[in-house]
Structure formats: structure tokens, C-alpha cells
């Protein structure tokens, strides 16, 4: 009950601070730009009426993955921005003192804040992905395969960043926390590329670097599995999966289970650190 109350307050706080409106308006702007670009691309590709299925599929797939990657990145940025100050800032300013001296337990504060932000983040990613795929369906009459698992993986990517940021906020200041989490995300991003290139070149060492970093920070691996699931089999058949946003090597389902466990463990660790610290 207290967890839900804190989650509600966290959600309302985002509304009071006009974060929700900013996200909605800028999300709509993103979709407007995407739909306009996709419409003109689609019109050009299909103008002659003689284009082959593969020559149409390639740019559609590229646009789909680019758009989904954009949402995934915005999701990561949003996860970081809405959470980086939530514990760290309140501890620094002292506002947390009036919260934790209410009749609730400290773990409820952490869990409630995480839940409120997670709901907000999930709603953003799901709605944006649904809208983007809807635009592609309406204009291009194309529905990617595995849309639901792919969207859930993008949500999981955002939750990894969100949870790490809340964990960092229990001990670090807002700025240091933001820098650490974003740099970890950047590390995972570059390691993901190294792994992909390693997979193309069949280089074991490069693949292993990617896997090790994914264990440390599994965010990018979730995107790569989502991209792999979204790509049509025809693209792989024609060896066209290695777009800048695609995935030539997909992390296994075991890595997804690891990432889900990673979120749970990081959240428990955040609770532990917050519960045992002086405020």
C-alpha cells in the first residue's frame, strides 16, 4: 500500500514538474518527424510500381529499426533524467527526511519511487513504439515480426538504466550518478558494436569483449535482441541484417533472463544501500 502511495506521488511529481507534458509533446514531435520522413521515402520507393519486395523491405526495415532505436535511446535518456535526482537530490536537499519519517519503511520509499518511474517509462516506450509501428503499418502496410517481445526488450533496456540510476542515487550525488550511469551505457554501446563487428568477422576475442561488458551492463544487448527479433527473415537471407541499427549477432534468451535478474538484484541492492545509510 505504501509502495503504491509513493509510486503515485512520484508519478504526480512528474506531472507537477511538467515532465509528463514535455515528454508527451516532444514524443509527438518525434513521431511527426518520423512519419513525414517515412511517408516521402515510401512514396519514392513505390513510385514506379515495379520495385521488388526486397528493395522495398530494405528501406522499410531500416526506417523501422532507426525509429525503434530512436525510441530506445529516448527511453534510456528519459530513464536517466527522471531518476538521476530522485533519491540523490532528495537526500542532498533534505526533503527525503520528511518522507522517511512518515509511518513507512525505507524499502517502500525505494520500491515506490522505482515503480512510479518504471510505469512512466514503460508507458512512454510502449506508446511510442506502438505509434511508430502504427505509422509504418498505415503508410507502408507493413507489420514487423515479434513486435511485443521486441517492445518488452526495449522496456527492459530502459528499466536497466532506471534501476542503475536509482542504485547510484542511494550513495552518489545527482551529477556523479548521471555521469556514471550514462558512461556505463556508453560502454555497453561500444562493446555491443565490437561484438557485432566481431560476429561479422568471426573474431572470438571481439565477441567475448561484448559479452563480458553485456554482463556488466546489459542494456545494449537488449536492444540488439529486440532489433534481431524485429528484422524480417528475408533480410538475413539476403545478408542485409547489418544495418547501423540492426543486429548481426543476437544475444540469447539466457541473456534476457540475466538482464531481468540484473534489474531485480540492482533494485534489491539499492534498497539495501538506502536502508542502511544515514540521512
Amino acid at each position: 500500500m505504501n509502495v503504491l502511495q509513493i509510486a503515485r506521488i512520484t508519478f504526480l511529481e512528474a506531472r507537477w514538474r511538467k515532465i509528463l507534458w514535455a515528454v508527451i509533446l516532444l514524443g509527438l514531435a518525434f513521431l511527426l518527424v518520423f512519419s513525414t520522413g517515412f511517408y516521402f521515402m515510401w512514396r519514392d520507393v513505390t513510385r514506379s510500381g515495379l520495385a521488388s519486395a526486397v528493395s522495398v523491405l530494405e528501406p522499410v526495415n531500416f526506417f523501422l529499426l532507426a525509429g525503434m532505436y530512436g525510441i530506445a535511446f529516448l527511453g534510456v535518456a528519459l530513464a536517466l533524467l527522471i531518476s538521476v535526482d530522485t533519491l540523490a537530490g532528495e537526500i542532498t536537499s533534505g526533503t527525503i527526511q520528511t518522507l522517511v519519517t512518515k509511518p513507512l519503511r525505507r524499502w517502500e520509499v525505494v520500491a515506490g519511487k522505482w515503480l512510479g518511474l518504471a510505469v512512466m517509462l514503460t508507458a512512454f516506450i510502449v506508446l511510442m513504439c506502438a505509434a511508430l509501428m502504427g505509422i509504418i503499418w498505415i503508410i507502408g502496410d507493413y507489420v514487423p515480426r515479434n513486435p511485443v517481445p521486441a517492445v518488452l526488450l526495449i522496456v527492459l533496456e530502459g528499466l536497466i538504466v532506471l534501476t542503475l540510476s536509482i542504485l547510484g542515487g542511494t550513495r552518489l550525488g545527482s551529477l556523479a550518478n548521471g555521469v556514471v550511469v550514462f558512461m556505463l551505457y556508453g560502454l555497453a554501446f561500444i562493446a555491443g558494436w565490437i561484438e557485432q563487428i566481431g560476429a561479422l568477422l568471426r573474431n572470438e576475442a571481439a565477441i567475448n569483449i561484448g559479452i563480458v561488458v553485456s554482463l556488466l551492463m546489459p542494456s545494449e544487448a537488449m536492444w540488439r535482441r529486440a532489433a534481431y527479433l524485429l528484422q524480417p527473415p528475408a533480410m538475413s537471407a539476403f545478408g542485409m541484417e547489418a544495418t547501423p541499427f540492426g543486429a548481426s549477432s543476437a544475444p540469447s534468451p539466457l541473456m534476457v533472463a540475466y538482464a531481468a535478474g540484473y534489474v531485480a538484484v540492482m533494485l534489491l541492492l539499492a534498497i539495501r544501500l538506502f536502508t542502511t545509510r544515514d540521512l
Partner: protein
Amino acid sequence: MLIETARLRKEYGELVAVQDLDLSVTEGEVFGFLGPNGAGKTTTVKMLLGLVKPSGGLASVLGRPPGTPEAMRRIGFLPEHFRFPPWLTARDFLDMHARLYGMTAEARRERIPALLDRVGLGGRGRSKLGEYSKGMQQRVGLAQALLNRPALVFLDEPTSGLDPVGRYEVREIIRELRGEGVTVFLNSHYLSEVEVTCDRVAIVKGGRLMRVGTLAELTQGANEVEIEARGLDGETLAGLARWGEVTADAETPVGTRKVTLQMTGDDALPQIAAYVVGRGAQLYALTPQRPSLEELFMRVMAEERA
């Protein structure tokens, strides 16, 4: 006892913030906790609220370990450095905190306007906290501390930033709370405020409890008496030595003599009066002078550590 500590201690590395504190606060009293900056007052309050974990010793608040939800349900707290979400109105802010106490919608509708009236913000409940002055924010903080009709209220510098009228109003609220049987634990730098509102006072210095008791108890044993008389000769003055030490002696513009006698206790006042008159002097005034809390505080601060 509403609050009880035994050898309560907090260390930050080599720094001892609170040193083996033994404290008892009884139900219904206004307890003043005094000390200079860095004396360990706020750390003590934080330990009693479960915000800071003690390095040693024991503490019990409302019969329970500090910070447990069962205890916190009956406790109100106004922190020293209370920061407010500036985007919230006072009503929204209080509503948010009232929900955390599990108050029903009906209870919130009744309690919040009443509290805003009580702290003098009746007409400003719908203004954003960012538009409030420091004093108004402090009042909202006080209202927040009283939302749950607490049995015990911790007020850490409640009049900080308030103008004289605001300070007077807060003192009145503290008096009202005492009238309602609420126990108040008051941290304050304003000694005069503590002097007029508190039933008992503790003075801490360097993390150690230096004195604790009622004002009368604390000032006992350090009495002065001022004697104003005409015709006090040297022999009479020398005779006063049997009751204490003459620490001041001056002629007044109206031809009388004012003598200050440092003594222990008030018991000898009638004898001194009889002695002065018996020596043929005209006694105009015999005024016992207790040290103010401020004087006592300064005296304690000047004491070397044992």
C-alpha cells in the same frame, strides 16, 4: 517516558558527534535541547527519528525503537533545513504528506484547512510554495509536522527565518500543543524562546550532555541578590560575608548604595534584610537575581571539558 536514551553514541570516523547521551523526556512536557552549532543536537534528533543509526547505546521513542512505522505514526517532525517542492501548492503538499499517514479523504479535507489556519496561512493554501517567503515555508513545515495529531513532535529550529510575529505565533502553537498534552522536543538557538516555552532543558556541548533539568533546577545554586540601601557602612558590608561574597558595590546617583551578593539559595534573604535594617541602614530593595538561561548557557559553554 516518551523518549529514553542510554549511552547513545554516534561517531563519524574519529569525530564523536554524540557521546554517551542519557536522556529522558516525559509525556506532555516541552523539552528544550540547547547547544552551539556542532554540539550534536540535530544528530541526536536524527537518531531518535531513525534517520541516523547510532554507533552505540540504546534509544526508545514512544516505547519502540526509533524509526519504526508504529512509532512514526504518532510522531511529527519539522527538520532544520526543510526544503520544499516549489511547484506544489501548500494544500497539495500537505495532502501528499497526509496520504503517507494513511489519512482518509474526509480527514484530509477537514484537517488541512484547519492546520493552514492554525499556522496563519488560511488564505494562501492554493499558492505555490515557490512563491512563499522563508517564514511562510516554515509555517507549512510546521503544519506538516502536526498533520497526524502527533503525541510527540520534534521541532528543529522551528522559528528560524520567522519575523517576531511569526516567532510569537509559533511559541503560542507550542503552548497550545502542551495544553493538548502533546510532548514537544524543541531544538532551538533562540535561548529566550526556550526559556519561555520549555518545561525542561538540556544543554549539550561537543556531543556531551552538560546539564539537564527545569530552569529553576539549572539556575539553582548560582543565585545573586542585589541589595540597595542608604547608610551601608564598611562594617555592615563586611558582615554580609557570612552569607556570600560581595561581587559588586557602587553608589547610585540618588545617594543609595547597590551591593551584589553572590550566595547559595534563597533561604537567607529574610536574615539579610533583618541584618541590614538592624545595622541601622535604610533598605530600599532586596532583589534575588537568578541568572538567565543565556547566562547559564554561556557559563556552560565556557566550562572546560572534564
